């Protein structure tokens, strides 16, 4: 025991040392952006924030305030000022446009609705009412889409928003930026982790604002973005009107190293002749025009990453369900599992084999006993053995693993005993062939050709040899029943066997027969989670019938 205690102490030390070790290694952390404070304590452009959802009027005062602060605080060149002002007015114009459109759409929608109401009141023919209803839904959708667009645009305004306390960065995508460039507007834009020369030529990704780790040596040349985002390739992107309205903006989480000071910059795009700062940039095309340093900021780590809330809820809920059902299954192992059609096919096959007076062959797969699929095969073997004992036929079980062979012998013996025919059990029929994959296959195929079993069961995990086994079995004219979770082999089994237990069905059959609390509880727990997913899909379908745009469900399950 002295030795044991010492080892115990070592083990305990390991557990303690792991976190200590972790703390000892200085490495850049990967953290959600917390509160951003400025070096001089002033409210700079980075700390634009407000609480709650702002009213639309806030939108404009908010935007103006930012830029005024910016202009006040930094000695911007005239050009930079102009760029910023232009960009701002462009954005403001965009929003104003969309707002006008949306209000018009709202008016149209309301008109359509009252027309519909009137039609119903006037008891007009069904055809007319239906047409009015259709018109109303169309207007409703247009309005809804524009409403979304307003929200998205509004989010694009801010580098970060507080939605409650949840912090997110909104970024602009390629299409939007390109449109801006094409329309000749100068545009507040996009930082890029690549060297300056390539900024702006990058095809498929762009962020609104960038930060640069101030601690990096060549901070001037490296412009490090908050994050990079992937946008659908312009060549393949969905260019329908709804997509351009809604999918232009994408929320991405900000990942910064806490307690490290970052330079925060704003870069502007424009058609410039030549820029002394970036001589590599070619004249004429849309190029990076200016980079404005607007301050420094150091993020503070949060205690909990709120963007991962839906993840936590799902993991906790599902974990809890699984554990609960395992406990319940321990108390009551007779939980309901539906009939597994494959198991009935098993009984039928054995019956037919007996009629023909030929043996039955059973394989437990090629993996070791520790694998779930092998265990499932063993459980089903127990059932098969019981049935065979009833019918008085022979059961041949060639094995690849001596351990599996021993367990198979026990299971079959028990099956025969339970059926009241212990005398019919023959140990020699459950034998070890060879551990070698292809030699095992060749030998098993040999037995199939020689003994011509009437039924062949291929349960458990198989590799490439599945095809050889199933082909030979089909050639002998046997009834074949397979069950495997080897996804690549399943198609081969389906076309060569009379019945196939597909993937999870094998586990379910095993749980059904063995009533093992762990298997049963997990199966039921997973069923609950599946029911949850199916409910969401069903709900989405119902919502689709009633209104085409409904993102709530999707937002609920979208990882942030």
């Amino acid at each position, binding site marked *: 025991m002295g030795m044991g205690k010492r080892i115990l102490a070592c*083990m305990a030390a*390991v557990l303690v040392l792991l976190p200590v070790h972790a703390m*000892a290694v200085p490495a850049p952390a990967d953290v959600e952006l917390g509160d951003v404070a400025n070096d001089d304590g002033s409210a700079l452009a980075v700390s634009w924030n407000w609480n709650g959802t702002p009213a639309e009027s806030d939108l404009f005062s908010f935007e103006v305030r930012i830029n005024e602060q910016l202009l006040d605080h930094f000695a911007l060149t005239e050009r930079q000022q102009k760029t910023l002002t232009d960009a701002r007015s462009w954005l403001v114009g965009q929003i104003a446009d969309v707002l006008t459109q949306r209000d018009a759409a709202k008016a149209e929608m309301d008109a359509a609705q009252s027309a519909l109401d009137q039609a119903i009141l006037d008891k007009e023919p069904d055809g007319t009412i239906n047409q009015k209803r259709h018109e109303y839904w169309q207007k409703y959708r247009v309005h809804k889409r524009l409403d979304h667009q307003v929200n998205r645009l509004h989010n694009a305004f801010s580098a970060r928003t507080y939605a409650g306390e949840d912090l997110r960065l909104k970024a602009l995508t390629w299409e939007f930026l390109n449109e801006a460039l094409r329309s000749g507007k100068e545009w507040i834009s996009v930082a890029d982790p690549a060297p300056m020369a390539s900024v702006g030529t990058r095809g498929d990704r762009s962020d609104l604002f960038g930060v640069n780790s101030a601690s990096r040596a060549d901070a001037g040349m490296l412009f490090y973005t908050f994050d990079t985002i992937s946008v659908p390739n312009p060549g393949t992107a969905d260019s329908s009107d*709804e997509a351009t309205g809604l999918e232009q903006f994408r929320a991405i989480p900000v990942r910064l190293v806490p307690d490290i000071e970052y330079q925060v910059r704003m870069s502007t795009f424009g058609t410039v002749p030549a820029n002394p700062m970036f001589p590599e940039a070619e004249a004429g095309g849309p190029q990076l025009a200016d980079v404005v340093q607007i301050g420094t900021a150091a993020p503070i780590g949060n205690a909990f990453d709120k963007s991962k809330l839906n993840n936590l809820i799902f993991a906790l809920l599902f974990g809890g369900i699984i554990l609960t059902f395992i406990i319940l299954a321990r108390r009551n192992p007779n939980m309901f599992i539906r009939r597994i059609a494959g198991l009935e096919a098993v009984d039928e096959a054995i019956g037919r084999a007996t009629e023909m007076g030929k043996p039955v062959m059973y394989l437990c797969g090629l993996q070791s006993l520790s694998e779930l699929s092998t265990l499932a095969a063993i459980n089903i073997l127990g059932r098969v053995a019981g049935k065979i004992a009833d019918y008085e036929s022979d059961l041949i079980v060639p094995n690849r693993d001596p351990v599996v062979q021993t367990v198979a012998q026990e299971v079959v013996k028990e099956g025969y005993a339970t059926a009241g025919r212990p005398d019919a059990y023959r140990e020699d029929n459950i034998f070890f062939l060879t551990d070698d994959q*292809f030699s095992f296959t060749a030998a098993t195929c040999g037995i199939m050709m020689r003994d011509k079993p009437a039924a062949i069961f291929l349960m458990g995990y198989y590799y490439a040899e599945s095809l050889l086994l199933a082909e030979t079995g089909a050639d002998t004219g046997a009834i074949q029943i397979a069950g495997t979770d080897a996804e*690549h082999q399943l198609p*081969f089994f389906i076309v060569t066997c009379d019945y196939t237990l597909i993937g999870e069905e094998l586990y379910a059959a095993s749980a059904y027969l063995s009533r093992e609390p762990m298997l049963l509880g997990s199966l039921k727990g997973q069923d609950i989670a*599946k029911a949850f997913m199916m409910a969401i899909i069903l709900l989405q379908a119902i919502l689709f019938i009633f209104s085409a745009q409904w993102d709530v*469900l999707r937002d609920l399950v979208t*990882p942030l």
Partner: protein
Amino acid sequence: MIPAGEVLGTWIAVGLTLMMFSFIYKDNPAFKFGEHLYLGISVGYYVNIQYWSTIYPLVFQAMKQQHNYWVLIPTILGIFILLRIIPSMSWLSRMAFALYIGGFAGYSLPLIVHSLLLPQLSQTLQPYSGGPGPVINQIIILVAVFSTLIYFFFSLEHRRTVGMISRLGIVFIMVSFGASFGYTVMARISLLIGRFQYIIESGHIMFPWTRS
């Protein structure tokens, strides 16, 4: 001029290839010899790879060059794992496996939810857009995912409506297995083509005088 080692090697390689091909005639000693030779070579190869790419750089070099002695703890745990082949000491390996498998279960759990489960679910709920064709496809996807889930749902008997939906599910599953099947056939044939290409190209190395 082709080096002698290459000529000899190519002869051996082609010989071994034919030896493995002899299995299509039947299981024979030549194939068994080849299979066992392969097993020995591969085991020797893997031992080398594991040593030179893991233990040598991460343990020995880390201690010698970076003076990082923390690596001793996982090394001891690793040695515990090797003790599994000695039955009386095999229980020690449980500590290492517990740390590795237990920790990893915790590490991967939220990431599976974040990176696989939720995106796949949320993509099924995509907004419907892009004209009649894509919308119909969207609806088919929704129906197919739903009915496949029903097929693998074990808490309801497959009767009446549920039975019909699960029949629909099996239709989609079969089409997808068909796609896999077609692709699997393609893969096996590609491998055969690769071997034939090798044999055909080796001709000039095996018989150097045939090179023009």
